[in-house]
């Protein structure tokens, strides 16, 4: 084997020498004449020949190998440096940064489209739950005191999450850097995933509601989404502010309850007033109007608002896992619509309106006059699925205690963190859906990439049959002799054996 290798190497070298000699006439040079005896000796001695061949091949190989190792190390170093730079850029430019509520969360590495159950936002929420609630309220109060909306958006994870176009824009900018493929998203895959979602009907229901700010959710309407998200943020902030104010004035809540407890069930105006009071407190940050007679005059105009609040309350009472997207989004829509109407309302008023001062509600009598609850009070409380126009509470009290429970319930929704939690849960749910959608787009191209090479492979390569020829036999083997005999004699000439 070694001899054969050496022989082959010799042939190769000789061929090279022949070519060089024929071109440059090396054999007549003085150098060659000087080296010729040594070369002859080299050729005659296998040991020298082997050593020279080994040196001939191993030395360049070693040089090339060393160079390749150094290059590989340099490349790894460059990659490491690039990764470090990417991490820096990620901290500065990554859209995920906007999804984080706390600045210290930027240090945590989270997969952009991972199927994590606790997103950075939810993590921050979990952390917040562990904190003191009062401290949290103070923090939110400080945030709400900040007038700039952009700053609030940058802090609120929901805005960055639901502003899909902004997100995509920043993501594309991030991807346009072309430095990392880990978070690579294909636009076509993205669109395809959106189409798939539409085909599945998850978003088609939203399209059917033209007033829904999320109706064009799939079309990436920046303005509508931004607006809706801002509304949600404002709603949350406003609710938290109210909670903060109520906490600061804890003695007034029982008074309102006390006032509400005085309302009689089944009365033509008491429950309506109670409800309208509650609803206004929630929806418009206005004190309730106890006088039902005044509200009847503008009932058609005001019907919409209680309907929305009813849905919201019904949905809030139900677990989120049982809610569909359309329900959640419709509730968010109602909230958003309502808050849009509320926007021009000055916030100082809300602080004043929290107090259950009945006379102040007269300022809003025209708005509340449209409420008519006389017929609706007859609806049995067991009926949970009623048209929104009927406007019945799910747990409409039939006794004072029930009223007492129901009334604090609506008050607790704003006086306790449950309301904020519910909103947060909604946002979490939407966030999870949002992430899942991107996750879907992220996984979509995978089977395409798998199928195409597979199909090409099967189409290009076809199995070819070949008859296996006898392997090279060693001349000292018996099989070689048998084979040789088989070549010498014909088939009918075997009797010589």
């Amino acid at each position, binding site marked *: 084997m070694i*001899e*054969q290798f050496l*022989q082959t190497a010799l*042939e190769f070298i*000789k061929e090279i020498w*022949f070519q060089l000699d024929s071109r440059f006439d090396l054999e007549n040079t003085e150098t060659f004449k000087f080296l010729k005896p040594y070369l*002859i000796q080299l*050729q*005659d001695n296998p040991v020298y020949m082997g050593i020279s061949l080994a040196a001939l091949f191993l030395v360049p190989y070693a040089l090339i190998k060393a160079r390749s190792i150094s290059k590989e190390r340099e490349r790894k170093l460059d990659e490491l440096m690039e990764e470090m730079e990417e991490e820096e850029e990620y901290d500065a430019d990554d859209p995920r940064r906007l999804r984080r509520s706390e600045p210290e969360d930027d240090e945590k590495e989270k997969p952009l489209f991972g199927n994590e159950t606790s997103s950075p936002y939810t993590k921050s929420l979990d952390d917040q739950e562990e904190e003191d609630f009062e401290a949290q309220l103070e923090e939110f109060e400080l945030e709400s005191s900040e007038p700039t909306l952009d700053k609030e958006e940058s802090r609120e994870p929901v805005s960055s999450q639901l502003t899909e176009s902004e997100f995509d824009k920043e993501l594309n900018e991030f991807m346009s850097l072309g430095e990392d493929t880990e978070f690579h998203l294909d636009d076509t895959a993205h669109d395809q995933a959106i189409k798939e979602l539409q085909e599945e009907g998850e978003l088609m229901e939203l399209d059917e509601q033209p007033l829904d700010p999320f109706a064009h959710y799939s079309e990436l309407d920046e303005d509508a989404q931004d607006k809706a998200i801002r509304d949600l943020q404002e709603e949350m902030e406003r609710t938290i502010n109210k909670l903060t104010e109520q906490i600061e004035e804890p003695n007034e809540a029982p008074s309102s309850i006390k006032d509400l407890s005085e309302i009689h069930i089944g009365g033509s105006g008491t429950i309506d007033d109670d409800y309208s009071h509650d609803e206004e407190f929630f929806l418009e940050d206005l004190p309730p109007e106890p006088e039902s007679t005044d509200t009847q005059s503008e009932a058609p105009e005001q019907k919409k608002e209680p309907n929305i609040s009813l849905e919201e309350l019904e949905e809030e009472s139900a677990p989120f896992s049982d809610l569909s997207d359309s329900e959640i989004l419709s509730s968010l829509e109602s909230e958003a619509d309502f808050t849009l109407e509320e926007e021009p309302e000055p916030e100082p008023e809300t602080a004043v309106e929290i107090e259950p001062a009945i006379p102040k509600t007269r300022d809003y009598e025209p708005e509340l006059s449209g409420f008519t609850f006389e017929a609706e009070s007859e609806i049995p409380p067991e009926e949970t699925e009623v048209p929104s126009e009927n406007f019945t509470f799910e747990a409409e009290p039939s006794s004072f205690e029930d009223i007492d429970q129901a009334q604090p319930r609506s008050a607790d929704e704003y006086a306790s963190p449950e309301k904020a939690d519910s909103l947060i849960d909604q946002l979490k749910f939407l966030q999870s859906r949002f992430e899942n959608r991107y996750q879907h787009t992220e996984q979509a191209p995978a089977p395409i990439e798998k199928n195409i090479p597979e199909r090409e492979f099967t189409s290009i390569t076809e199995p070819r049959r070949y008859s296996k020829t006898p392997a090279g036999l*060693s*001349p*000292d083997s018996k099989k*070689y*002799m048998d*084979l*040789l*005999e088989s*070549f*010498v*004699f014909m088939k009918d*000439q075997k009797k*010589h054996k």
Partner: protein
Amino acid sequence: MTSPVNIIAVGGGKGGIGKSVVCTNLAAGMALSGQKVILMDTDFGASNLHALLGIGNPAHGFQDFFGDKMVDPKTLLLDTGISNLKFVSGAGDNPGSANIDSDKVGTIISFIKNLEADTILLDLGPGTNYNVIDFFNISTQGVVLTTPEMTSIMKTFSFIRGALFRKISLAFQGHPEIQKLVDHSDPKNGDMDAYTTGLLRSKFQERFPDHIDQLNTLINEFNPGLVVNRVRNRKDLMAGDNLLKLVKKFLEVDITFLGYIIESDRVRDSIDEMIPFLIKDPQSKPSENLQQIIGALTNTDLQFVKRDGRIFVSKQVRLSSGWEA
């Protein structure tokens, strides 16, 4: 079929195995060792020895025998530039010139036997044609050449068997029944079952018991030498050994292994330079191998040394060989 001249025929069944090169170098070596040597190119129709010797446009050759003119045999002997070495060219091979009849072959054989020389070397053509084998069988020392490839081994075996059976056939020319046994040139009339010497012996034992001794003598006297050319390793030498075993097994002939010649580009370079490699570089490995072969053929120990462009030869005769130098 004895001859006062030592005739060495170099043949082999397969073409391109180096017969002409080896024959030329054998002739050159023997000539340099002091023998009067005549090298003959009997590869009619594909002659090339004159090219190996660098003789361009040879004035005469075996083609002169095929014309109508009477030829002076001495004019055929060409100078080669190597002392003691003459050359008879087979050049001038026109299309179809290889198809010479038996009469012309006989004329050439007669010419060869009447030459005055110590050694006549015949470079045979490939194949097992009778025109080739007959020249091989007139030799006092036949040399079969092979290369380690299996195809060459096969053809060399066929050449040896053909030469042996042709020799037996010529020995029993007056016995047509025996001719049928050993001459397979006509399958319709021949007995194709006797394709080994063992089968032939059994046939002779049954049908011609009186000629069995003559048959055995012919077989025993048939003792060509074997040279394995283009050897690269020991495994290649095993191929030559396999040929010996094959011949012994099926032909019951003892072949003398004369030696081998290593594969080397020096040989090819010598061909390109039209100088025998033994002269060009007598101390190279192929030259050493060739010197051993010459020593085996002549029962001498030769050693060639080249200094300052001149070749010095030391020759030692093996007295115990019984070969009369």
